[in-house]
């Protein structure tokens, strides 16, 4: 039986012939938000565990970049909106059912928190630093007094931010590729891995670099497991999900996914990390860059391929 499908009268820009509503802004935001979530997760976790002396890069240095990542991400998100003048409507509603709504609110909490967190370490990192206005001094004293509580809040929102980007996509049952609950944990693992990569890059002590390189190695292992698991799940599912998986198993996304995400972004850095643990000298910048590249491509490919995957009826 041969089936021919003719659709007439319909050629809506950005929807036909395949969905193309989200461009570079969304995956860029997912990536930046993910890296920031990863860094802030480790910062608050190790602060709560009292490892301030041991892991200064994770707790004090790396969070310095998160406000920039988050603001850049928010800017990308804003650029993506088609009805920009109305963006404030996001903050007039809390809609539990909409991952985008709680993501927007989570960003509203974690962005100022990341700024306050970074600012509260400035004096320690740059002796000679002083605030121009007394109210900032007072604010700092107040924040430092309750830093532990803020660390708990930040830990919670870092996980929300890391997971939500995956859930945002997996909630779309109209796009079979996204419609898998693996995407949440996969994006969380990727954000922890990329966050660890930034910390590795900024770590000055050998001990800290070593620990985060180990954490990263574990995260990569988890990601690989989840990816295999995801494709197995697709293959055992409905026809639309089999078709979605086939985009990566011989289809148009095969090369870019397996080369840029899996090989360059996961296997290669994992190999380098193992070598390093065995005592070889590997420039950390190379490993970090590879991990970040992998995380970046993962978001781009999933966002683009998901839009191309659909129900046919």
């Amino acid at each position, binding site marked *: *039986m*041969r*089936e*021919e*499908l*003719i*659709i*007439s*009268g*319909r*050629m*809506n*820009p*950005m*929807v*036909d012939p395949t*969905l193309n*509503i*989200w461009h570079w802004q969304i995956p860029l935001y997912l990536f930046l938000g993910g890296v920031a979530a990863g860094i802030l997760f480790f910062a608050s976790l190790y602060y709560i565990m009292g490892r301030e002396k041991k892991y200064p890069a994770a707790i004090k240095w790396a969070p310095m970049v998160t406000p920039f990542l988050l603001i850049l991400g928010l800017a990308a998100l804003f650029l*993506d*909106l*088609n*009805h*920009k*003048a*109305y*963006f404030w*409507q*996001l903050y*007039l*509603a809390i*809609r539990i*059912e*909409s*991952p*985008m*709504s709680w993501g*927007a609110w989570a960003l509203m909490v974690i962005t100022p928190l990341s700024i306050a967190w970074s600012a509260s370490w400035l004096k320690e990192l740059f002796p000679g630093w002083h605030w121009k206005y007394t109210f900032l001094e007072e604010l700092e004293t107040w924040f430092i007094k309750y830093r532990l509580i803020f660390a708990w809040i930040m830990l919670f929102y870092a996980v929300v931010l890391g997971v939500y980007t995956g859930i945002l996509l997996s*909630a*779309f*049952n*109209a*796009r079979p590729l996204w419609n898998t609950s693996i995407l949440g944990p996969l994006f969380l693992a990727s954000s922890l891995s990329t966050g660890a990569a930034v910390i590795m890059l900024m770590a000055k002590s050998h001990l800290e670099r070593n620990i985060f390189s180990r954490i990263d190695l574990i995260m990569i292992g988890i990601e690989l497991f989840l990816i295999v698991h995801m494709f197995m799940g697709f293959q055992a599912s*409905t026809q639309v999900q089999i078709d979605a998986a086939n985009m990566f198993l011989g289809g148009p996304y095969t090369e870019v996914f397996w080369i840029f995400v899996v090989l360059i972004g996961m296997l290669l850095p994992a190999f380098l990390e193992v070598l390093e643990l065995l005592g070889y000298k590997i420039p950390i910048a190379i490993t970090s860059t590879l991990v970040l590249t992998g995380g970046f491509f993962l978001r781009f490919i999933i966002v683009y391929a998901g*839009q191309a995957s*659909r*129900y046919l*009826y």
Partner: protein
Amino acid sequence: MRFAMAIDTRKCVGCSDCVVACQTENAVPIGYCRDWIVEVNDGTYPQLVMEIRSERCNHCSNSPCVRCCPTGASHYDYGGIVLVTPHKCIGCGACIASCPYDARYPHPKGYVDKCTFCVHRVKEGLPPACVAVCPTKCLYFGDTDDPRSEISLVLKKRKYKRLIPEAGTNPNLYFLI
């Protein structure tokens, strides 16, 4: 009240009158559409089966588009009709990605637009423009909660299918087969 539409695929000739009527009635921007025609040809010559469907938003009872909208711009309105409030819509596109029927499009003015079942006409007791104009009278519009409405009667009499019910949307377009 539950508004729904039935489309007789055996009567539809695919003339696209409904598409044009909608564009005119709702001032749909040029190059966009809220409804469209799908023609499915099955089999090999000479054993051919053809089905023609006039499609639009399914005004789903379990709409992913309403669920994912972060501002509440997409909402259930009069008689279950799914509508978008333009001044609440931020144009994030989530609802466009969430619709398995690709029934929504980004309006050039920034907000998201789609079929409204001509709610402005329905409130006055008139049928949607596409139904009013159809030359073969293959479109039925009405309240499926009312057992005596024309659409309820036709759904009782005829076999029908709904499109991708497995997407969990609980759609309200019935295609008579």
